[in-house]
């Protein structure tokens, strides 16, 4: 017996369903946010990283208000299960992101998980972290048109300077 048509249709719903219940979904995301604040770069399934991204950025916005703010402290207390990370959030991460107006995280997709489920994985990291960069910027090869023209210009300039 279909109890309500509204429950079956999900047009415009933005929150994904995780875990056993809405409480369990928040607990799952809370664990991920704690891990992100502790390690500053984590690998998780893509959907969880996407969902967690919004919460992590809003938590940093709250932290920017300062630790004297009652509401900011309560939010940090709920979202970070390991209490030593509250200090790190307010004293390290909030000053680091103070000049930036938003988008404190970077999310990139990585090859599917090796296990049986072949889940779509992503790596999510806080910008400005001390770990080696994820993306190494590759220089263009010497054989591209622009680089060849520049090389020719440099050689002409050297010949003109020599003569």
């Amino acid at each position, binding site marked *: 017996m279909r109890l309500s048509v509204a429950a079956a249709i999900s047009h*415009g719903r933005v929150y994904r369903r995780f875990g056993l219940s809405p409480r369990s979904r928040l607990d799952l995301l809370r664990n991920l946010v704690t891990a992100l604040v502790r390690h500053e770069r984590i690998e998780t399934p893509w959907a969880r990283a996407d969902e967690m991204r919004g919460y992590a950025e809003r*938590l940093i916005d709250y932290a920017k208000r300062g630790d004297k703010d009652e509401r900011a402290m309560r939010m940090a207390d*709920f*979202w970070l299960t390991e209490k030593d990370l509250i200090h790190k959030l307010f004293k390290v991460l909030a000053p680091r992101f103070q000049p930036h107006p938003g988008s404190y995280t970077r999310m990139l997709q990585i090859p599917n998980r090796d296990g049986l489920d072949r889940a779509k994985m992503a790596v999510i990291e806080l910008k400005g972290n001390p770990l080696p960069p994820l993306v190494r910027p590759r220089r263009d090869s010497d054989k591209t048109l622009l680089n060849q023209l520049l090389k020719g210009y440099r050689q002409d300039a050297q010949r003109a300077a020599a003569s």
Partner: protein
Amino acid sequence: RVSSDGKPPKFQPPPKPVIIDRKTQKEEMRFLSPEFIPPRGRTTPLKYYIERKDMIQRRKVFNIPEFYVGDVLAVTTANPYASDKSSRFVGICIQRGGKGLGATFVLRNVIEDQGVEICYELYSPRIQAIEVLKLEKRLDENLMYLRDALPEYSTFDVNMKPVPRMDHEEVPVNKVQVRMKPKPWSKRWERPKYNIKGIKFELPEHKMQAAQKWSQPWLEFDMLREYDTSKIEEKIRKELSEELEK
């Protein structure tokens, strides 16, 4: 007054009156009608901009006063079947819904022991006048529980005179705790999802605690559900004040 040395006491001029100029203070905290604030969604802002222009156009012609949920209004609408072509209804505003041009408000009154609720659209051209008879706020944004309250809380005299109030005063909050009819009610108002502060619950303690089973304490920490309207409100206030001064 007894003087210490026999001479008449020295004339003390009365203290100068302190003039608190509230008009300049109140300019910034002007009331913004809730139907101007666009809802959260993926619609283009152009739609809300066009709607706001139409709303401002209507407001220039017809005055929609500032009113809140819980105050008593009298509305005259055009009625082709009435003898003098207009009908007047007085009632307490229990709900303000909708955004944009479809914004509505529901007035409730009890007439000859029959509860009557009429839902009016703020921007409908059939409305000829809206008068605020008593401006006050209540503890909740939604007074639908008055349907299950004793009828004395919803009865208002149809020929009530408007209560005079000064322009610069704060809107008074009526902290009345309403007494309810015996259960069953139309909704289970004791449950925490309605978050009602204006009812005097006379239910036994175990029933109140059983209702707390449906509380969702994690909702207050769910940050993505918060909708911060302060910047949007500022922009809309500026736009409104510019347009209405023209």
